[in-house]
């Protein structure tokens, strides 16, 4: 039973990954700094999931990336582009309405 719940929680979290990542990329960030930024805000993402996800979001045209050669080692920095910003706004709006709806559903269930 606990395993089933864990799987469902993982699935629930997976669904929020893209929104979490996009929300933190209004400023430039490289992979590890983004992971840390998300962790500080309570969102833990596996590195093996986060880094390929950044590539996919870039391929989908939501992010812009460039190599920085000014640090101790080359780092690839990612940032939202205009399309990414529009998608983030849409997703955020959808998220808020989903949260409101879920809140309503759960409250009704608790009151029974």
């Amino acid at each position: 039973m606990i395993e089933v719940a864990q799987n469902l929680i993982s699935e629930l979290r997976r669904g929020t990954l893209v929104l979490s990542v996009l929300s933190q990329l209004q400023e430039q960030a490289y992979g590890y700094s983004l992971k840390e930024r998300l962790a500080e805000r309570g969102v833990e993402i596996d590195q093996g999931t986060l880094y390929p996800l950044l590539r996919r979001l870039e391929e989908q045209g939501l992010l812009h990336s460039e190599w920085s050669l000014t640090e101790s080692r080359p780092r690839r920095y990612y940032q939202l582009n205009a399309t990414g910003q529009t998608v983030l706004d849409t997703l955020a709006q959808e998220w808020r309405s989903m949260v409101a709806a879920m809140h309503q559903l759960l409250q009704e269930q608790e009151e029974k």
Partner: protein
Amino acid sequence: MELINRYVYQVGRRLPERTRADVEQELRSLLLDALEERTGRTGDFAEEEQVAVLEEFGSPEQMAGKYRPQARYVIGPKLYDLYRLIVTVIGGAGLLAAVVTTAVTAVGPDAPSVLNLLLQAWTTFINVLLSGIGSATLIFAVLERVIPEEEFELDEEKKWNPRDLPAIEPRDEIKRASLIAEIVFLALLMTALVAFGQRIGGVYYDGTWHSTPSFLSAAFFSLYLPLFVVRWGLTILQDVVLLRQGRWQLGTRITDLLLHFLDIYILGRLLGGPSVVNAEALQVALAGAPEAVDVLGMLLQRGLQIGFLVALLITVFEVVSRMYQFIRDYKLWIVIKSKQVN
């Protein structure tokens, strides 16, 4: 840093060439970020520290699977490695079928011409390859949609141990200078034999200078030279592909194996067929010592046959060792092992 290098290499070799170098560079940078964060140092990382970070990243198969573009695949990353292995085995079976059927036809009473034999070998190979790969693709595409994803993930997570990462094998690297030298050499050799082969003879003096007929027999030009031209032409083609790809890959390894099977066929023909030496040229060259013609001719023929036999044995050994490498590289042992367990 050895484990980090191995990990990056293992991920990279599973990615399309278009993105490989870029992903490898980024992955290495991210792994070093994680190591620095964990250890508080900028280098000299212990093996245990590398293991801990690599375990967080997940197995190379999983990581590469996530980096591969998803939408275009009929067969997803979870099944891809096994699919590639099966396709390699089918390729080997196709080659074997082509060689065996061609060899049987070649030694039969109604042996067709060399060109027809090559055509038959090629047709057999393509038939086996197409029907085999077609069936395998269909089965894997169905499995991809039938087996739940969790079934794969659980197994992989249990198996993954960074200490088991195979060493980076320099066999995958190419030597550009050698390949270019080989292309130039073979192109010159082919041109020389095709254009001037008939003139490769000796000169002798009996008051005036004369040249002998070509030392190479008529059989050399009609039977063997076309085979050499095909073999060397394919080698040049393969070298060009390697120069473009930058390293050995599955496809080039299969073609290389195919070329070695062709070598076995050519060497078999050389061993069992007519001599490459033109006896007439020897008679002319040694006109002053006719008793030496037979002895020298026999020695030359025996020497060549021994040379061909040694080359044949070396090539067979090469083919066996390359097939063993295939089995090792593409984890055929897992299939064998799982059969033993079952």
